[in-house]
């Protein structure tokens, strides 16, 4: 299992290959989040961020078969179309890989201490948290 919080970009293909080597693995589900239309700065809480993501991955592994997993989240200055986040889950079958990947992503949105600041022509503003993200995480409790 790999959790990385970094400024640098990542290579989806290389990350997927890295968790696909065991013959037990029959499915890898991956999600990549991108910056949409505005330049932004991402701040995080060093130390807590890694711990929070590891805890989320542990919760996923308790519910589904997770044979391997990589989560990468970037911070610092990001431009439109830049990759922000990668979640990749390797499992024997697709059902577990899809579910665990989506679960990790939904919880990351509400539990991992990152904050986005958008830079528009009128100035810079902190992004407000969305209730839709809380609802997406809450549905896994049902």
């Amino acid at each position: 299992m790999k959790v990385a919080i970094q400024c640098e970009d990542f290579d989806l293909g290389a990350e997927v290959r890295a968790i696909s080597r065991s013959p037990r693995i029959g499915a890898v589900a991956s999600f990549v989040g991108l910056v949409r239309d505005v330049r932004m700065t991402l701040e995080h809480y060093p130390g807590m961020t890694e711990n929070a993501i590891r805890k989320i991955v542990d919760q996923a592994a308790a519910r589904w078969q997770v044979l391997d997993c990589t989560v990468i989240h970037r911070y610092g200055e990001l431009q439109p179309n830049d990759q922000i986040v990668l979640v990749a889950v390797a499992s024997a079958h697709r059902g577990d890989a899809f579910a665990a990947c989506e679960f990790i992503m939904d919880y990351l949105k509400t539990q991992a201490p990152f904050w986005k600041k958008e830079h528009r022509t009128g100035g810079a503003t902190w992004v407000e948290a969305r209730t839709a993200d809380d609802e997406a995480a809450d549905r896994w409790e049902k």
Partner: protein
Amino acid sequence: MKVTVLFFAALREQLGRPREELELPVGVSTVGGLRDHLRARGGEWANVFAPNRPVRAAVNQEMVQPVATISAGDEVAFFPPVTGG
């Protein structure tokens, strides 16, 4: 009882500081109590920690509720609801 208090994102900018070493007054023993104590400083502190402002907290890098207790040497962090991903 000494603690380290950290501020992130909009809170850090509004308060003009990322951290503070703080001697907790007698009677302040929870995260909610510390928030009330900071709000009572007035000015920007009153705005940042206004009751209707959504502020989240962590103790020793674990997300907690306002009832969570604080011990000597703890790292207490205050920040807005998270917006990563």
